[in-house]
């Protein structure tokens, strides 16, 4: 019987999205849905959990996790392996595929079954097109873009079989180690997870107007983003950059203020559900992407917009 193996990381929400994605095609494929867990045990709503347990796996180290996952795959023999397309998945997915001699498709936004095989779809050309790939090998490794799949309900597994995995690991297999961790201290939600993003671009003319965007974001419980132009100009930290070479965001509401809409920025908001553009240039490419647009100088719009939103929210 076919098997879809999801690789569960430390983020439970991401694991549930992978299970949801797997369930979407499991029935058509006649596949079991299973999970690989490295390090601390996890309870997930799947048929089998392959538990790779070792003190060397308690903290993430890519070479050790790769060795453990390779052992899991030898035991499970899955047809499809799903990982989240996060920092870990971006390195583990292709490396695992290379070790297995398996095909790999990264940053997938959807799956379908075509002629009994898994078709994996992903954005390409900065999000201007979508490509669909079939596996040329018996196994396919796919990384899945976060926040694009309906997650499985967060329930305990029913009748889940937990299978230990035989491992041969040694500390010397790890060729990298983390010597320091620098974390952004931001009030409010992270850009990648925010439901609302207020974003500013070159049209803001300088760093000062971003303070107003921050007040707006605080009011609506959102995060502040910026275009590459604003970051390159040094107006805001580069960690605020939304775009293909920045953060990929998937909010319900994305308000783009003074942003022209270069391809690489549009790639970063391809998963945004509603894009609102405020720009004084009616020809700006952002208006082709936006659902609602205001053609005006943002300076004449933003104060009233914030005020009206404050009234609507009763804050």
């Amino acid at each position, binding site marked *: 019987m076919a098997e879809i193996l999801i690789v569960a990381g430390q983020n439970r929400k991401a694991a549930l999205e992978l299970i949801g994605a797997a369930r979407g095609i499991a029935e058509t494929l006649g596949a079991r849905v299973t999970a690989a867990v490295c390090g601390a045990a996890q309870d997930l709503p799947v048929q089998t959990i392959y538990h790779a347990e070792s003190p060397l796996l308690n903290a993430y180290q890519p070479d050790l996790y790769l060795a453990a996952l390779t052992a899991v795959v030898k035991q499970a023999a899955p047809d499809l392996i799903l990982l989240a397309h996060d*920092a870990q998945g*971006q*390195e583990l*997915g*292709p*490396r695992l*595929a*290379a*070790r297995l001699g*398996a*095909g*790999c*498709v990264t*940053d997938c936004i959807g799956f379908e079954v*075509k002629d009994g095989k898994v078709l994996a779809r992903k954005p*390409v050309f*900065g999000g*201007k*097109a979508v*490509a*669909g*790939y*079939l596996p*040329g*090998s018996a196994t396919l490794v796919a990384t899945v873009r976060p926040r694009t799949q309906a997650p499985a309900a967060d329930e305990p597994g029913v009748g889940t079989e937990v299978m230990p995995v035989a491992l041969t690991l040694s500390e010397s297999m790890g060729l*990298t*180690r*983390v*010597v320091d*961790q*620098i974390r952004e201290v931001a009030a409010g939600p992270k850009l990648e997870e925010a439901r*609302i993003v207020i974003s500013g671009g070159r049209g803001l003319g300088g760093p000062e107007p971003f303070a107003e965007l921050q007040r707006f974001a605080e009011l609506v419980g959102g995060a502040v983003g910026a275009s590459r132009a604003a970051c390159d100009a*040094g107006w805001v930290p580069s*960690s605020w950059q939304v775009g*293909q*070479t920045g953060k990929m965001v998937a909010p319900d*509401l994305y308000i783009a203020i003074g942003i022209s809409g270069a*391809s*690489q920025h549009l*790639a970063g908001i391809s998963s945004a559900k*509603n894009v*609102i553009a405020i720009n004084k240039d009616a020809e700006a490419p952002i208006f*082709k*992407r*936006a*659902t*609602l*647009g*205001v*053609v*005006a100088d943002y*300076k*004449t*719009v*933003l104060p*009233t*917009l914030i005020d*009206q*939103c404050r009234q*609507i929210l009763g804050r």
Partner: protein
Amino acid sequence: MKIAVCIKQILDPEVAPKDFKIDAAAKLPIRGQAKMVLSSFDENALETAIQLKESNGAKVAAVCLGPKEADEALRRALAMTADEAIRIDAPIDQDAQSLAAALAEAIKGAGPVDLVLVGRQAGDWDRGQVGPMLAEALGYACVTASFQPELKGDKLQVRHEVEGGVDVVEVTLPAVVAITNHGSNVPRIPKVKDTMMAMRKPIAVVAAPAAGAPLVIREELSIPQQDGECEIIPGDDGPAKAAALAERLKDLKLL
């Protein structure tokens, strides 16, 4: 120390969406008037390599897989003062494993190479696979999505992007590091004299190993339908439009 930088020449990603057309049967974009450019993360990787050359006296070899027109990308690398340019004469539209295998062989031929830098993903197919797969093919250590490498003896420290910030990662050489853009690696504009000298430098052309059967097959390529037109909010002036927009956001329950 020797650094190899893998670069790719791609269709200009700044083609506006309205000018971007595809051949659905061939599953390829139509080039039209678009230029071929150096993939932007590869420019960041080149800049990173040249900075290491300037600070540590490393030698830099630029490696590019592609047809003859890809020489232009290598000329740019040479103009940025790369020491060596190698083109692998092979078709560029292959799966990542095949590309990684071809690059690995060229790098072994240029060796011994202590550090391989690649852009984190190419601006056309957006895969981000070749770097990590190249590490596997070479048996090198691997760090993805990083910037600002610093040499510390036989180890390298890099800043690796993770959710919520940056991990400073120490990696044992030899290694493949996938480079992402950062204020510290904005690519330099080559000096005119370097660009002219680059035109006269040799580009070594090597063959690629025979590719195996593809491990992934591109079955479809399509342009997603835009859901309707943008609704432009009417109003006499900025404040009026703002008020109307706020109402629409309320109606759509987006706040």
